[in-house]
């Protein structure tokens, strides 16, 4: 469905994506994860055809998405910057979307509007940030586009609505499988939904793997300094802390499955996908604590 090869995207002097490669299969839910400014939104806008690549190849549905009618007709991008005509009521807006999207499910849109207590007579400019995001999400569900892109769709939503959104997304996907790209700052909330994760880090596609592979790729161990050091030396060190003298806790990136039974002196700690992501993309070992430690030394 989506193929990116050696993509470069520059905004004047600023590079948003570089040497970017990825391949996203049809009918999968892929989480697009990255730190702020990593290039997630740029990637999604390139795929939606809103932006023009500076170099490389972006192919969506077999075409260059920029100015492609086929891609536009089969893609919907939901984010908090959606521009909607303010003269139309929510009900009229839904009717307008129904006009453009042939798979539009009117009854689903109306049911969701009622569930989230959004009156069709309201105007979008009178909605709160969370309600506006909810309305955008309803459009995303009801449009049933072969490629649905959600860029931070839960911005402003309270936790109950976020929970409902994720549940609705999963149910809708199971009923009508399609290709979904979902970016969120709350990986811990969406990890159960995702089949694959595309981690964008430092403007590159850093990792593209399944959620279980992501969890398995990062291992936290605790034990005596000697044993932990021996284990760490075999892998890529991500974090290392001597919690009490002689006892160390380390986080490493492993390239292959670790047989824990081979290290009986070590305690293995299971990490969530979100923790694994944070360790993998942490710019500096020791994180923010290290900054304060350095500051205290001065």
């Amino acid at each position, binding site marked *: 469905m989506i193929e990116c090869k050696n993509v470069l995207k520059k*905004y004047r002097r600023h590079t948003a994506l570089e040497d970017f490669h990825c391949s996203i299969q049809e*009918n999968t839910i892929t989480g697009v994860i990255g730190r702020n400014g990593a290039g997630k939104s740029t990637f999604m*806008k390139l795929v939606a*055809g*809103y*932006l*023009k690549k500076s170099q490389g190849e972006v192919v969506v*549905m077999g075409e260059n998405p*920029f*100015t*492609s*009618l*086929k891609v*536009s*007709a*089969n893609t919907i991008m939901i984010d908090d*910057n*959606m*521009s*909607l*005509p303010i*003269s*139309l009521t929510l009900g*009229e807006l839904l009717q*307008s*979307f129904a*006009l*453009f*999207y*042939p*798979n539009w499910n009117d009854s689903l849109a109306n049911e969701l509007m009622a569930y989230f207590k959004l009156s069709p007579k309201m105007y979008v400019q009178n909605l709160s940030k969370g309600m506006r995001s909810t309305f955008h999400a309803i459009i995303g569900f009801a449009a*049933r586009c*072969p490629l649905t892109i959600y860029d931070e769709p839960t911005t402003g939503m309270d936790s109950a609505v976020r929970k409902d959104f994720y549940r609705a997304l999963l149910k809708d996907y199971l009923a*009508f*499988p*399609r290709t979904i790209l979902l970016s969120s700052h709350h990986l811990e909330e969406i990890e159960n939904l995702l089949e694959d994760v595309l981690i964008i880090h430092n403007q590159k596609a850093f990792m593209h793997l399944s959620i279980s592979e992501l969890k398995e790729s990062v291992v936290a161990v605790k034990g005596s300094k000697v044993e932990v050091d021996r284990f760490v030396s075999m892998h890529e060190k991500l974090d290392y802390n001597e919690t009490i003298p002689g006892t160390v806790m380390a986080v490493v990136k492993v390239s292959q499955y670790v047989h824990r039974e081979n290290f009986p002196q070590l305690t293995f700690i299971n990490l969530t996908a979100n923790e694994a992501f944070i360790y993998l993309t942490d710019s500096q070992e020791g994180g923010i604590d290290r900054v304060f430690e350095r500051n205290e030394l001065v």
Partner: protein
Amino acid sequence: MSLNEMSLFDVVKKQLRLKFLSHHSIWLSLVGIQLFGILISAVATSSGSSSSGNIYTTSHVYSSTFLQIMTYIWIVGTSVYLALESSNRIDYTFVTTRLSQFISNVIFLIFIAAIGAFTAYFASSLIPLVQRLFVNGIILNTSFTFVEHIMNITGTFGYILLFASTTYLVVVLFQFNRFIPLGFLVLYSLANVLLAKIGADSLIIPLYNFYEGESSLSLFLLKAFGLSTILLASAWFVNRSKEVRY
């Protein structure tokens, strides 16, 4: 899920429908501005009085020029609004491409230019009605044949279309690079200063004569459509590979 095929014609049709539905303010402003034009036009542009024995006559001349100027101002404002990226971004929330957006904008502009021309012309016929309400006296109307009516409307439409396409291009250029229209303005002013120094006419005079001096309606329309096509095609050339949003 299978992919949907949509033709350019289909998308343009849908976009036009959305534009007609969502741009309430354009129609409201047209009504407002023409009502204002009618009221201002109810003030005489020239007056005169004469007497012969015991008979005193006072004559007032009323013209719809102000109403037409107001309609031109309206089309300029509307064209600015339609050419703005913030308005065009709405199209991209739905199905669109730069081409379909451009075509739908042009058709919409032509349509509203026609509506503006019709309403301006018919609103001018309301001026004598307003006079009947407030003025005691004999009202003499300039009477036109049906063909003359059509010619007047068509002429107004040509001017409105020229204003619309010029404004559209200026806004597109300004959004592309704000120094381009300013550069043109500076060049134009400099050229006029130089022409004035050598005693020649301003640059606008030949252009004005080219249109205003045209006595044949069909030739005038040809000139108006020709220039509008060049202006709008230039706007398309600038906008065709512009990104939608950052």
